[in-house]
């Protein structure tokens, strides 16, 4: 970084893409403009699907889960006291995840996604239908985080996402046990790509 003009550019408070662009321009000063363009293009494309986008996708899933439990507690029919207690616990956790993700997104200069409009059909008509959809949402959540986490570039955010996905896995296990299912569907949890995870929750988006 010998170029004094580039070296004087303020890093703090600039967006990540601006920072990457600056690095690329510094490289260009050495290699010539021809060597720069692919890097600039890739860097900006990465920023498009970067940490902020991953966290916002996770946030959308957490909103979905939080609203699901909130509605189950408000209007779920036939829930046993035990199942209600579990739903209450999980609802609190999902709310905490929503808050944490919103804070993290703002922390990296992003804008948190708005809560989506969601609907859950007949899920709240019985304990069995509640547990069935809860299991599906929690298992999907685990796989969505597992699929997305390796793409996070910030080690700090990866650690935070890991701390959340472990809790999602615990939720999935408890919901499964409550419904009389094996807590582990497989020896290795599946990883879902973002498109697959988005498709899995699409039926609940209004």
């Amino acid at each position: 970084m010998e170029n004094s003009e580039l070296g004087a550019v303020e890093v703090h408070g600039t967006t990540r893409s601006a920072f990457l662009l600056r690095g690329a321009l510094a490289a260009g000063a050495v290699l010539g403009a021809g060597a720069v363009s692919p890097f600039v293009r890739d860097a900006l494309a990465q920023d498009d699907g970067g940490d902020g986008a991953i966290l916002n996708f996770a946030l959308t899933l957490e909103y979905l889960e939080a609203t699901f439990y909130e509605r189950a507690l408000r209007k779920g029919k036939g829930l046993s006291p035990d199942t209600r207690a579990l739903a209450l616990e999980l609802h609190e956790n999902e709310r905490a995840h929503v808050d944490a993700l919103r804070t993290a997104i703002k922390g990296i200069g992003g804008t948190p996604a708005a809560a989506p409009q969601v609907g859950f059909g007949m899920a709240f008509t019985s304990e069995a239908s509640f547990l069935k959809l809860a299991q599906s949402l929690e298992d999907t959540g685990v796989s969505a985080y597992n699929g997305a986490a390796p793409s996070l570039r910030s080690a700090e955010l990866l650690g935070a996402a890991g701390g959340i996905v472990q809790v999602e896995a615990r939720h999935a296990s408890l919901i499964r046990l409550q419904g009389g299912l094996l807590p582990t569907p497989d020896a290795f949890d599946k990883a879902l790509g973002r498109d697959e995870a988005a498709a899995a929750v699409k039926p609940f988006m209004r």
Partner: protein
Amino acid sequence: MPATSRKQFLRTLGATSAAGALLTACGRAGDKRPAAPPAAKSMSGDDVAILNFALTLEYVESDFYDAVVRSGVVKDRTVLELAKRFGETERLHVGALSFAVVGMGGKPAARPKTTFDDVLAGGPRKVLDTAAMVENLGAAAYLGQATRLRDKDLLARALSIHTVEARHAAALNSLAGKGFRGALPDGAFAKPLAMDAALKAVKPFIAKD
């Protein structure tokens, strides 16, 4: 170092320094260039050490469930069925991790000689509490290493095991009568455990020669 982790390495540098941008640009210009950065070898060495650490924990878990099932100490059918199922799962984790170590050009850690006599002598209650303890520490140990793995493919594989350990832990916490809140000991955000702390915690189960 596999191509993916090398790319990641370059990308990480690219995000943090202009020198990294330069390296990345060079990497793109001559993509097949074999010269890896000098640090590459020790980084994949770190990954092998992490995998072998996880493998050691999986050996302990796998041996534990074997010992529990063989002992006949547990009579509760749900707990016994889960012990069998979880034991099979841990064996698959042992296989996957050994395979991954070999894939990285490393040597899989030797199976430690384990002993669970004290736990088994303590009866079904002690067995269940110990199983829950071991799975909770396993989940926390994987979480502790997730941010340290350099290779993204290995990270993805480790995560797919991490959440299964978490499922085991929550189920066993719940069966051990800790309640739903006790099944989520760290609340909404699970805490990581460092390698040395995890190894210390399983030391009572490693037999002295």
